[in-house]
């Protein structure tokens, strides 16, 4: 039985072994290129194990702490892809912290490990421990440049992150206090057993729900817990920013969907309660993200606000899941599809930014003037990703938005979808400002922008998937539907 459990844990275990290997190799090997190869090999091995488990019947392991199911496996793949692409893209950036390469790769791998456990966690304690594992690595990564801005970013992230995990823990403690369980299905059973009037009269449960949403809200950067985003995104090294905006957010959504659906989706009225809460937060998040992004002149800050707005769109899907109260899987699979699309799109945009800002040594949008002549391929890739972020054909962003908005309209959230569409139009303004600057303006110099082959591979993979998800969404939607199937029974 234990061997069987270890076999189900192979993706995480192999990643841990490779992370430790990277740390050890650095101490005894002079040639630092080996470290990249080992990290990428680790990710490939772990992804291979994850794929070999695909199609498995949902199994609880380690005393029901973790659940190995399709949902967790899909998220594990997303995190591994994000970590792999970030490591490839960091090759252009690594000269800025050449001394600490192994630490960088190991921390990226370990935070990916934490996120993989987060997606699989089926117990509130496991959720918290894996959340901390990934967060602590990310705090260190955010301050990796050791300059003033990066240190500020790391410290801000650490302090606010600590507060948010305290809030999360408080919420979990309240839920535990009321039900006497920490395992999610047990809590759900216990809540099902209570008459509605009992739950209504106890503010403890609703308070716990709100505190838990607040704790995860920090992770997914929803308003009003978004304050850290612009500063941390601006100060952190650009590859880490990319990683934060994609993997960390996806991990937040993985765990919030599971907690809300399994624990608080137990009764229909409770489910609609948090559905409405998320819907209102989502509307505010979209508005704040998009409107503030309009006035940004630093591209990393702009992408910070843009990622807040994208979290808002994702929360439309989450609200639809709540409103559907378990009757309809469209919201859930749409959410997963949006996360896949967002992963590739945002990573692609950031990879292009890494190459360009590395050459320019600046993150100002005006310095991107005439980039189409200096780096035509990078400009095309960045344009494609911006088009996808706006949600225009023929890219992944459009299909993702259609799925999510469709689910929301089906469950009486038409008002929210109208707000979301208006926001998409607003977002087109600032996304296309960069496109305009890149293609219309005259370049300040004729110097070409160099990039390594590793970055080019990562960027072309991103662009390929942005187009694939946009043109042939059915296959990927099928994967997303297979992943959320585990929830239909509960």
């Amino acid at each position, binding site marked *: 039985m*234990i061997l069987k459990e270890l076999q189900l844990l192979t993706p995480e275990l192999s990643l*841990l072994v490779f992370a*430790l290997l990277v*740390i*050890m190799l650095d*101490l005894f090997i002079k040639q630092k290129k080996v470290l990249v190869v080992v990290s990428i090999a680790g990710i490939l091995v772990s992804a291979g194990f994850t794929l070999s488990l695909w199609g498995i019947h949902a199994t609880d392991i380690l005393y029901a702490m973790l659940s190995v199911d399709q949902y967790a496996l899909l998220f594990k793949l997303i995190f591994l892809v994000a970590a792999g692409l970030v490591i490839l893209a960091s090759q252009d950036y690594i000269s800025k912290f050449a001394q600490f390469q192994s630490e960088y790769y190991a921390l990226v791998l370990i935070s990916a490990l934490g996120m993989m456990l987060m997606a699989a966690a089926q117990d509130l304690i496991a959720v918290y421990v894996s959340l901390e594992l990934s967060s602590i690595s990310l705090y260190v990564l955010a301050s990796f440049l050791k300059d003033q801005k990066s240190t500020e970013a790391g410290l801000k992230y650490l302090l606010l992150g600590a507060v948010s995990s*305290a809030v999360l*823990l*408080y919420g979990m*403690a*309240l839920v*535990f*206090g*009321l039900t*006497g369980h920490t395992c999610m299905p047990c809590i759900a059973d216990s809540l099902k057993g*209570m008459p509605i*009037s*009992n*739950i209504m*009269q*106890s503010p*403890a449960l609703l308070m716990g729900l709100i505190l838990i949403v607040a704790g995860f809200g920090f992770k997914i950067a929803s308003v009003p817990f978004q304050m850290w985003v612009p500063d941390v995104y601006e100060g952190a090294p650009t590859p880490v920013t990319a990683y934060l905006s994609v993997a960390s957010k996806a991990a937040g959504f993985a765990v919030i969907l599971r907690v809300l659906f399994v624990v608080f989706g137990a009764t229909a009225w409770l489910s609609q309660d948090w559905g409405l809460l998320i819907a209102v937060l989502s509307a505010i998040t979209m508005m704040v993200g998009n409107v503030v992004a309009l006035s940004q002149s630093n591209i990393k800050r702009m992408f910070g606000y843009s990622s807040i707005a994208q979290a808002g769109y994702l929360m439309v899907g989450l609200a639809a899941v709540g409103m559907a109260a378990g009757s309809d899987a469209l919201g859930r699979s749409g959410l997963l599809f949006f996360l896949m699309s967002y992963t590739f799109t945002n990573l692609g945009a950031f990879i292009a930014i890494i190459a360009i800002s590395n050459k320019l040594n600046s993150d100002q949008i005006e310095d991107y003037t005439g980039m189409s002549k200096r780096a035509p391929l990078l400009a095309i890739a960045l344009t494609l990703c911006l088009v996808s972020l706006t949600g225009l054909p023929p890219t992944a962003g459009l299909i993702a938005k259609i799925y999510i908005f469709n689910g929301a309209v089906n469950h009486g959230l038409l008002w929210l979808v109208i707000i979301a569409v208006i926001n998409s139009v607003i977002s087109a303004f600032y996304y296309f400002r960069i496109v305009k600057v890149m293609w219309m303006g005259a370049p300040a110099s004729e110097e070409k922008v160099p990039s390594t082959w590793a970055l080019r591979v990562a960027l072309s993979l991103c662009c390929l998937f942005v187009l694939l998800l946009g043109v042939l969404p059915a296959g990927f939607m099928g994967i997303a539907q297979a992943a959320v199937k585990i929830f239909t029974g509960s």
Partner: protein
Amino acid sequence: MPSDIFACFFFFRHGILSPQHFEPGAFTVLADYGYVGILLVAAILFTILLLLIPLTLSLLGVVPRKSNPVKTSTYECGLETIGKTWVQFNFRYYLFAILFVALDVLTIFLYPWAVNLRGLGLFGFIAMVAFFIILLVGYVYAWRKGALEWK
């Protein structure tokens, strides 16, 4: 943070948050909070009373006032400080402290494991070896990076 969990656990254990209190029309919750309120008022009154006793006694002249340097000094025991108290500690102490904590946890963890080793069997042994290796990686890392040298 831990105290919050403890408080919640405490409430749960002692029935203040237990499910039967959430029945329709249950006023027991309010009553329980009433006890807390009474305790709070009693605690405040007690504090004020304790503060008032010496004041009244000294006003009445019952308490003698014979001050001397030993009596008024801040420290009742221990050594007097020499020099300034705002000394900067070498940051290397941090490294040692962190390493100490990591290995200390290992030691604490080893005791219950060693007591139960026979019951845990081969799996327990392998699990501990894995844990040990992970810590060892950290130790070797610190060693090679020169964290153990006092330069």
